[in-house]
């Protein structure tokens, strides 16, 4: 009697992780395929650099593969919530190692969508101001904002990732938004009434 084949794509994350712990490369490949993009987004939100975000995600997954015992199913946490924490910590470590972080890639990206040079400049300036403002936030406030606002995690899930209380998370979110508004007003992107200004040369 032969062993029935495993349909890896149908397994839950936690079941796949049980196999990864036993060095099942196929299970690991499914996890990678399922979540690389999602965690790339999270990593990019943290560091603002495409290259660094890809390195962070790669290192996090390879760390998981080399030491699968760091995953502890008995704690009852969802895999995604737990791996958010791994990626966030990896991002923090990366940014500490890289002293001269490049910051956002916004101004390096070009478009060929028919925008005039002035429109491109305006759009790049707005994007760059916003990205710079977010990256200038204190680490924990930035992480709270990224998890709740951009990754769509609930306050409870985000609090679990950051290992803080829900109240603590809400306080971080409030301070992050207040800090962002202040920075954007200082940069002239927002006026006092919090309306987006036109940031265009000569207008």
């Amino acid at each position, binding site marked *: 009697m032969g062993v029935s084949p495993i349909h890896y794509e149908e397994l839950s994350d936690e079941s796949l992780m049980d196999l990864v712990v036993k060095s099942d490369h196929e299970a690991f490949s499914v996890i990678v395929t399922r979540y690389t993009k999602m965690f790339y987004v999270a990593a990019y939100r943290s560091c603002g650099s495409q290259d660094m975000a890809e390195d962070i995600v790669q290192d996090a997954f390879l760390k998981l593969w080399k030491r699968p015992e760091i995953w502890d199913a008995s704690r009852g946490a969802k895999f995604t919530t737990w791996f958010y924490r791994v990626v966030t910590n990896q991002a923090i470590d990366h940014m500490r190692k890289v002293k001269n972080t490049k910051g956002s890639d916004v101004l390096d990206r070009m478009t060929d969508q028919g925008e005039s040079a002035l429109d491109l400049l305006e759009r790049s300036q707005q994007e760059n101001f916003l990205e710079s403002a977010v990256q200038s936030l204190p680490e924990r406030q930035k992480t709270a904002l990224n998890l709740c606002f951009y990754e769509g995690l609930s306050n409870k899930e985000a609090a679990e990732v950051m290992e803080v209380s829900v109240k603590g998370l809400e306080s971080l979110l409030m301070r992050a*938004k207040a800090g962002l508004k202040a920075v954007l007003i200082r940069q002239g992107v927002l006026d006092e009434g919090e309306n987006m200004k036109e940031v265009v040369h000569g207008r």
Partner: protein
Amino acid sequence: MDDNNREFNEILASRVLPPMRSNLEHRIITAAHAGRVARQERGFWAGVQAVWDEFFDDLLIPLPKVSMVLLLLFALMLGVYGDLSFVSDSGAEDMALYMDFANNAGFGGAL
């Protein structure tokens, strides 16, 4: 105020995200597989080298902890080996007295 908050949220939501390179998943899977093959093919000393490298790779991160550990080890070494005179002055004097006694005691010709 709601309009202002909505507008602010719209501004936040406009934050741009460059796309991920399409082969990132493949690179991760390949790197993991290559690592596993390398571990299987390595001999004993290569494995020792790998552990050594991994240890020093990790040292890049917890610098403050490493500094503290090294400092404690240094202090311990200093405490154990700080006094390099293994023979104390009083010990040397005792030995001199003993030899003097041995030479001059006069054991009635027994020695």
